[in-house]
C-alpha cells in the first residue's frame, strides 16, 4: 500500500457524519488518493462510467455489509486502514445519526483524534453539537472538522469563517482545546489529500496533512503507573519450576526494576525485580507496552488486581459515579443488577440512582429521568459488590472506563466513564 518504512507512528481516528454530509466520500477519497484501496476493490464498487469522482462511488468502498449497501446507509462501525510515508492510520468509521450514538461512542473509544463533517450549506447543526459533545465526553485530544461541500457554496471564505467561529465558541464550552477547521470538497478532492485550485484563500493544512502532523503520543507515559494484571504465568516446567510472572499491558506511566510497588485493592507491597519480554529484559517499560513483571517478594496477586507505584495509588471504592452511554435494547434501570468490566476485573454492580439524562441534542440535563434507553447518555451512581480500583476518566482514560454487561444475555449494554 504505502511506502515501506519502519519507524512510522500510529494514529487511531474516528470519523463521524451522516450520508448527507459526504463522509463516506471523504473517507473513500482518503483511501483512494493514498492508495488505501486496491484496484479490484474499486472495481467491485465501480459505478456507471462518468458518475461520481473518477467514475467510482467512493461511499461504496466503506459500506461493508450487504444490508448497508442495500439501504445505502452505514449501520455499524467499520475499521479502515491506510498509510502514508509518515504514519499509519486506523480509521473507525461511524454512522452519524442519533440512533447510532452507541456506534459513535464505540468508534471514539479507541481514537486519539476525531474527524467530523459539516455540510457548508447547512452550517452547525444539532447533530454537530451532539457529535462534538460525545468527542468531549470520550476525552479525545483533537477534533478536526471538515467543512464539506465547499464546491456547492462557490468556495466562499466568509461562510467558512462564520461556521468556524460558531464552532470555536461551542468547543470552548465543551472542553475541547484542539479544534481544527478545514474547508473541503470531498467530491472534488479539494483540501483532502490535494489542495486543489479552488481555495487559494485557505492557508492551513489539508485533512491528510493535519492527520499526519497532529500529536499522537497521548502522553500516556507521563501519567501515573498503572498495570492491570491480565494473567499470572506459572509454567511449572522443568526449566521454570518456580517462575511466577505477572503479565499485562501497561495502561499508563513507566516502570523500572527496583521500583516500589503496591498491589491493589489489597494493598500489599513489594519491589519490581525484572521486566521480562521475549526480546530480553528491559531497564524501563512504558505504556502501552505488553510485558511480564516479576517481584522481589512472594505476594498474592491474581488477574483483576492492579500494580501501581506505592506512592501514587488510584481510588479504591465500592461506590462510584459515571457518565454512561446506554447500548442495550432494554433500558438501563435502577435496582437491576449488572456486571461491569473494568480493566481486567469483572464485578457485580447495581445502579443506585440515575442523576440525570442528557438531552443529547439540546445538551440539557433532565434530573427526573428514571431510565436510560438505547443511545441515551446520562450520569448514574453505582454500588459494587466488592471494591474496585480506578481513576477518574479525566485523569486516566485507560483506568477510568468500564463496560456494562447484562448478566442474563451476556451482551455489552453500556459504556461508562468514571466521574
Amino acid at each position, binding site marked *: 500500500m504505502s511506502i*515501506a518504512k519502519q519507524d512510522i507512528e500510529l494514529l487511531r481516528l474516528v470519523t463521524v457524519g451522516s450520508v448527507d454530509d459526504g463522509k463516506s466520500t471523504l473517507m473513500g477519497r482518503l483511501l483512494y488518493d493514498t492508495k488505501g484501496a486496491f484496484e479490484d476493490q474499486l472495481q467491485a464498487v465501480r459505478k456507471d462510467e462518468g458518475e461520481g469522482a473518477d467514475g467510482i462511488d467512493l461511499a461504496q*468502498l466503506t459500506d461493508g455489509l450487504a444490508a448497508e449497501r442495500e439501504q445505502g446507509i452505514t449501520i455499524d462501525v467499520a475499521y*479502515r486502514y491506510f498509510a502514508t510515508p509518515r504514519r499509519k492510520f486506523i480509521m473507525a468509521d461511524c454512522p452519524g445519526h442519533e440512533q447510532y450514538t452507541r456506534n459513535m461512542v464505540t468508534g471514539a473509544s479507541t481514537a486519539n483524534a476525531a474527524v467530523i463533517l459539516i455540510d457548508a450549506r447547512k452550517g452547525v447543526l444539532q447533530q454537530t453539537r451532539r457529535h462534538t459533545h460525545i468527542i468531549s465526553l470520550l476525552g479525545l485530544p483533537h477534533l478536526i472538522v471538515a467543512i464539506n461541500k465547499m464546491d456547492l457554496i462557490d468556495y466562499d471564505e466568509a461562510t467558512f469563517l462564520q461556521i468556524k467561529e460558531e464552532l470555536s465558541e461551542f468547543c470552548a464550552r465543551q472542553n475541547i482545546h484542539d479544534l481544527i477547521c478545514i474547508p473541503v470538497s470531498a467530491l472534488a478532492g479539494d483540501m483532502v489529500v490535494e489542495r486543489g485550485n479552488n481555495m487559494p484563500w485557505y492557508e492551513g493544512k489539508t485533512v491528510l496533512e493535519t492527520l499526519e502532523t497532529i500529536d499522537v503520543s497521548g502522553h500516556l507515559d507521563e501519567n501515573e503507573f498503572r498495570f492491570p494484571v491480565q494473567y499470572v504465568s506459572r509454567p511449572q516446567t522443568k526449566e521454570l519450576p518456580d517462575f511466577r510472572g505477572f503479565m499485562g499491558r501497561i495502561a499508563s506511566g513507566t516502570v523500572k526494576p527496583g521500583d516500589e510497588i503496591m498491589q491493589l485493592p489489597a494493598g500489599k507491597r513489594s519491589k519490581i525485580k525484572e521486566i521480562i519480554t521475549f526480546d530480553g529484559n528491559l531497564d524501563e517499560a512504558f505504556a502501552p507496552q505488553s510485558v511480564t513483571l516479576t517481584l522481589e517478594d512472594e505476594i498474592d496477586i491474581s488477574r483483576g488486581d492492579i500494580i501501581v507505584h506505592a506512592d501514587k495509588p488510584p481510588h479504591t471504592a465500592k461506590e462510584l459515579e459515571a457518565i454512561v452511554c446506554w447500548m442495550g435494547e432494554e433500558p438501563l434501570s435502577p435496582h437491576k443488577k449488572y456486571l461491569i468490566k473494568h480493566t481486567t476485573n469483572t464485578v457485580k454492580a447495581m445502579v443506585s440512582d440515575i442523576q440525570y439524562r442528557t438531552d443529547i441534542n439540546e445538551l440539557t440535563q433532565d434530573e427526573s429521568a428514571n431510565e436510560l434507553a438505547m443511545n441515551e447518555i446520562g450520569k448514574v451512581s453505582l454500588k459494587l459488590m466488592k471494591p474496585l480500583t480506578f481513576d477518574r476518566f479525566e485523569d486516566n482514560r485507560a483506568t477510568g472506563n468500564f463496560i456494562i454487561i447484562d448478566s442474563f444475555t451476556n451482551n455489552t449494554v453500556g459504556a461508562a466513564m468514571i466521574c
Partner: protein
Amino acid sequence: MIDKTMSQHKLTQLQELESESIHIMREVVAEFRNPVMMYSVGKDSSVMLHLARKAFYPGPLPFPLLHVDTGYKFQEMYEFRDWYVKEVGAKLIVHRNEDAISKGMNPNEFGVARCCGALKTGALLEALERGGYDAAFGGARRDEERSRAKERVYSMRDSFGQWDPKNQRPELWSLYNGRIHDGESVRAFPISNWTEMDVWQYIKEENIPIVPLYYAKERLMVERGNHLIPAENSQFLLEGEEPKRVMSRFRTLGCMPCTGAVRSSATTIEEIIEEASIATRSERETRIIDHGSNSMEDKKKEGYF
C-alpha cells in the same frame, strides 16, 4: 528484532500493534476455559504464532494449534508446518473432513462453494466441536475484505458456529466481553488491526520463517481467466489447458486448485515488501472463493472464520 532504541517512550506503529495483539491473546487465555489457535500455515498464521510465543514467554504456549487440512494444500505447506511446529515446540492438531475427502470432494466437479463448505467450514466446525474449544484464535485481518472491516476482535458465534453481522457486541477501549452461554464460542482475531504491509514488515523485522511459496521462482502454471493456477498436480487442469513455467509467487496460500499465483520476480522479503508497496490489486484477489457478491459475508454466516 524491532529496534527498541528508536525513541524514548514512543512505540513505532508495529510495536504498538504487537503490544495490542499480545494483550488480546492474554485476555483470551485468561478468560476462556479451552482456547485453540487456528493455524493455516500461511504468513498471517506465522505472525500470529510468533506473537503468541512473545505473549506467553518465558512459558510455553498455553493452547494447541489446529490445522484444518483439506488435503489439497501444497506439499511445501505440509513440510513447513511439520518443521516449524516442532521448531517452536507447539502442540499441533490436524483435522480433516475424512468423510468428504474419501468421497472425492473437489472444486472442479462439486463447485468451489460446496468444496469449501465441506472441507474448510465443515471440517473447522467439526474440529472445534470435537475439541470442545470455547475460543479459537484466527489470523483474519480487517483490511482483507470489506465484510471483515466490521468484524469484532471477539467475534461471537452461536452453537452452530455461525456469525450474525447484526448481532455483534460493541467493543470499547480495550475491554473485550468474553462472556458466553454454553455451546456458544468466540473467534478471537488478535491481528485485526494489521494490514498486509504490516504483516510483511513484521516478518522482515522479526525474521519470521514463512513457506517458500511466498518467494518467486519458476513454477508450472496454467492461465485461467485472470488467474495463474498451479499445474503441478495435473488432476486439477481443465481440458485444453497447457502448463508452462512462469516466474511467480503466491500472495496468499490456500488450496492448490483454488489459489492463484502472481507473476513476480521477488525472491527476498525486501523485494516482496517493495512489490506489496506498489501493488494495485488486493491479495485476496487470487482467492477464487472470495468472488461473487457477498461471498465472504455469506461464508462467515455459515461458520467460516
